[in-house]
């Protein structure tokens, strides 16, 4: 029988399972296709509607997503992503929104021809007096070839760290109106955020 695991009740999120990849986590994703899954939750002391509205305007995402160079809006459902890769290169893809619930959920998947096929969803769950629990789940396929090796540096080893840091920056921006920096001069700050 294959249901030995499900026989043990466990309320922990599927993405925190010790065995990876976790089928349950991937099933959460629409059209995932990827075999690497990252999920992070952060509580932000602002209403869900406000967070959703900021996030849904994809062109603003580079304000807290360190690796995203820019997001071009192609239509209400399609966008073009340009993301930093090692050695000064970039990777690109078109993404389509696959599911959307106002103030609650945005899910997306990359389209054919993506340098790094990926899919994910970001949920905004009302947390009462504490604000909103934001849960990001991302699945992706590490690319093959030379570029793949470079990209893997970011997308294979680092995505968990990157997602965590990006969510922290999102939290800082939404809660404090700015992204914390320890730089002393503009020059330093530009170098660190370049």
């Amino acid at each position, binding site marked *: 029988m294959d249901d030995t695991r499900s026989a043990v009740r466990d309320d922990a999120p599927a993405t925190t399972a010790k065995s990876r990849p976790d089928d349950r986590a991937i099933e959460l994703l629409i059209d995932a296709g990827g075999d690497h899954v990252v999920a992070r939750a952060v*509580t932000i*002391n602002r209403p869900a509607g406000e967070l959703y509205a900021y996030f849904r305007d994809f062109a603003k995402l580079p304000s807290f997503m360190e690796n995203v160079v820019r997001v071009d809006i192609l239509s209400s459902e399609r966008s073009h992503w340009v993301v930093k890769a090692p050695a000064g290169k970039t990777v690109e893809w078109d993404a389509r929104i696959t599911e959307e619930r106002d103030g609650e959920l945005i899910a997306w998947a990359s389209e054919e021809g993506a340098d790094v096929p990926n899919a994910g969803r970001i949920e905004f769950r009302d947390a009462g007096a*504490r*604000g909103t629990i934001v849960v990001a789940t991302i699945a992706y396929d590490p690319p093959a070839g030379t570029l793949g090796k470079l990209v893997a540096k970011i997308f294979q080893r680092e995505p968990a*760290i990157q997602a*965590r*840091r*990006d969510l*922290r*920056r999102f*939290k*800082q921006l939404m*809660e*404090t*109106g*700015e*992204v*914390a*920096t*320890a*730089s*002393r*001069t*503009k*020059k330093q*700050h530009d170098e660190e955020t370049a």
Partner: protein
Amino acid sequence: MRALTWHGRHDVRVDTVDDPEILNPRDAIIKITSTAICGSDLHLYDGYIPTMQKGDILGHEFMGEVVDVGTRSTLKKGQRVVVPFTIACGSCYHCGKHQYSACDNGLPADNQDIAQELYGQPMSGLFGYSHMTGGYAGGQAEYVRVPFSDVGPIVIPDGVEDDKVLFLSDILPTGWMAAENAEIEPGDTVAVWGCGPVGLFAVQSAFLMGAARVIAIDHFPHRLELARTFGAETINFEQSQTYEALMEMTGGIGPDACIDSVGLEAHGFFVDNVIDQIKKSTFLGTDRIHSVRQAILTCRKGGRVSMPAVYGGFVDKFPLGAFMEKGLTLKTGQTHVQHYMPALLDAIMEGKIDTTFLISHTLPLEQAPQGYKMFHDNQNEVTKVVLKPGLAIAAE
């Protein structure tokens, strides 16, 4: 500008560096008028704190004049302010509860990883105290960039001299919170381990909170004398056995509340689990851990232990059994400076608290390296060194 920078063990220098600039809307730039060397700065000086980088500007006890503000700062140019050593946003859940040192957003996102790894969740940022606490430039300089300036700095009324209010930045609120955490009831006997600035302010605070007796424990004669001037009884642990003395002095009951202000004396992260070398240092020797162990063993049954002293990693031989069996309460934490500043400023203005006694030496910023050396070499008599960038260098 000129700034005191760290270059290695026992190597701090006054260098010329770029002036700080406004980078975020809530920033302010402060022109420093007074800044103190903290006991915890000596751990940077001794090279015990990891993640220091050459050229880091030290200093987390400072005040000065507002000379530039971001668009969302509530400060005005020309105001005099004291700046808390904890960098807190004022907007997150923890700041909402006035748990400022637990602020979610004080550390830059990338710097939060180490604290999260060590402690489970990241804490607030700190000025001038390694890159694990944010890598923020400190205030032992002519100018400093202060983030979240609408939340942290407290405006000082005109005519009040720096020396009277400078310690609102750290050690006075820390001593006060230590006494508050001891949940002192009128008539209590309170024992305080360590008569450094925090211990001495805890002695003063304990009396203000209604303690009938305060017993201070140290081995520096001069510091014990200072404790006596506030009405404390004293135990010199080099001359007397602390446990036996405390039990005799309390009629076999033990102190109602015990405050450990010895610890590692550091505001930072002693990563003894990561840096084995630190374990070999005297600062992690058993005598240091001994103070909290002694506090637990002497504290009366059902009493309270307050621990302003900073411990960074793991300790051996913590008397968990005595702690449990006696039903003690232990409260601790980095100081929520922003929470305590307004009431303590009032107490200073009303003359209830005077902290100027602590200042033993005042030097120009240019002589900061000498200040570090004298503080390091003679902790008995050098109780506090205050640096003033505007002070002329004395002719030698």
